[in-house]
């Protein structure tokens, strides 16, 4: 079974030269690379946009939980002999419907909530590993199932990804205004007649689809690299929706394509490069933003009075 590293069919190890145009040209000669780039690009756009909304709605935990469901989904598919994509979409979709928001406000218990999430995460991964073992223990597959596999992406898969992405983005576009309203101010939106609950379910489904699609590129374990990092970086730069979304898409495409390109010229899998580049990007953006903030003129409130000098009159 193919491993997650990208090697051209003739087995020669491509070298990165300093001539970028030639390197990219070399890369594009291969149909599998073109498919990989298309798939990664489609996913980056979809994950970026969906991730941007997810961060706005503070539902990162849901993205995390859904990515945990992706692994048993893919391994179940392998066990049943169907393409992994079906498993991803089915399990992530079902998971999206099953997620319930943790209790907000005073009654919620942080320690209980995190314990519950931790146990669920471990359970999902344990079940996934069980399926892999039942599949006959062909462990070469394990790496692909966990970290993605960009080899042999067929034209059909690219079309499916494009269709799912188009559908998800169309849905988000149609619901954009009420969704934004409900995400930012659910109480007021609800009072104005916005179907906050239904929108929430709809978004979770879209999120499930995005996670499932991204899992095919980066693997379930590294989903956040495309789902969260570009959007979080964009949001650290600008709070405006239009600019933020555009920036997210650009960053996502850059991260995924550069990562993919680098992996073509090395033995290391794309997932590693994508995760590392996205992390570096995010770190850079946060450090710059913090540095810029500390240079701006200071507070508007007076500083508190100095502490007493130890002697009481």
């Amino acid at each position, binding site marked *: 079974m193919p491993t997650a590293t990208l090697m051209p069919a003739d087995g020669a190890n491509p070298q990165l030269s300093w001539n970028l145009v030639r390197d990219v040209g070399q890369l594009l000669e291969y149909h599998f690379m073109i498919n990989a780039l298309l798939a990664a690009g489609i996913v980056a756009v979809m994950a970026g946009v969906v991730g941007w909304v997810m961060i706005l709605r503070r539902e990162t935990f849901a993205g995390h939980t859904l990515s945990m469901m992706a692994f048993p989904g893919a391994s179940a598919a392998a066990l049943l002999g169907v393409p992994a994509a079906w498993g991803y979409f089915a399990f992530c979709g079902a998971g999206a419907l099953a997620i319930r928001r943790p209790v907000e*406000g*005073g*009654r*919620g*218990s*942080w*320690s*209980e*909530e995190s314990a519950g999430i931790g146990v669920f995460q471990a359970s999902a991964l344990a079940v996934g590993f069980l399926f892999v073992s039942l599949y006959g223990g062909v462990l070469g597959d394990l790496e692909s199932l966990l970290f993605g596999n960009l080899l042999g992406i067929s034209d059909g898969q690219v079309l499916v990804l494009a269709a799912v992405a188009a559908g998800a983005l169309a849905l988000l576009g149609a619901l954009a205004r009420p969704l934004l309203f409900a995400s930012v101010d659910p109480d007021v939106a609800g009072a104005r007649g916005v179907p906050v609950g239904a929108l929430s379910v709809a978004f979770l489904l879209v999120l499930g689809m995005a996670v499932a699609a991204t899992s095919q590129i980066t693997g379930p374990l590294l989903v956040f690299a495309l789902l969260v990092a570009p959007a979080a970086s964009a949001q650290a730069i600008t709070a405006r929706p239009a600019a933020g979304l555009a920036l997210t898409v650009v960053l996502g495409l850059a991260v995924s394509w550069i990562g993919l390109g680098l992996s073509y010229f090395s033995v290391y899998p794309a997932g590693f490069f994508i995760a590392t580049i996205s992390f570096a990007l995010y770190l850079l953006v946060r450090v710059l933003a913090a540095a810029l903030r500390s240079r701006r003129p200071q507070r508007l*409130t*007076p*500083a*508190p*009075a*100095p*502490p*007493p*000098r*130890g*002697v*009481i*009159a």
Partner: protein
Amino acid sequence: MRMGPGEFVALLGANGSGKSTLLKAVLGALPLAGGRASVLGRAPGEANRAIGYLPQRRAFDPGIRLRGRDIVRLGLDGDRWGLPLPLSWRRARARRGPSAADRVLEAIELVGAGAYADRPIGECSGGEQQRLLIAQALIGRPELLLLDEPLDSLDLPNQAAVAALVHDVCRSAGVAVLLVAHDVNPLLPYLDRVVYLAGGHALEGPVEQVITSETLSGLYGVRIEVLRASDGRLVVVGQPEPPAHHHDRHEHAHAHSHAHAS
């Protein structure tokens, strides 16, 4: 400033004036910048086993299932190594005097928490949790009780009840009490003296002398008015006050809504 046994002193002042800092200095948790302090005849920090301390309140995570009883018991032996073995195992050993289990009971009864001491503390209300924490501070039979804003985020009936409870303990057990507060009113019936901190200076004396327009204006350096409402409550107007920085402001809001909802 001097405090003797059985005295009830309130420490007042605006946010950031150094009230909590003073308590921490008394505990030896913060070094003195100048001057001297002697606590129970020793340097700050050395006599802490005889001091009961109630820090600024942070609500317990609602998921914590430890009972109030267990929390109170920690005040007795929580600082010693080893396992928190059930107290009933130790009862057989004690020959003289009350056993540890008895002392836990005693402390709980003292604060009137008997009805809910066996409930998971995460399920107790703000006022109930506060009482249990006071029991934890009292179980060591301290000579000095330091309370950092114990009435903050409690509703009015609970404020009155806790203030009365502290006063009871103060009088009956001869414990010296230094209590940090924002609002002097719940404490008015019980106070011996107040210490008022502002702008790096301090004033000490009986309430009628310290909390007056002239005195506070002199202390702050700006015009302060002290008004007395018809029911005897004091209102201080004109304090320059930086925004409050409570680290559990989040819990405050929810404690309020919880109290109102229940």
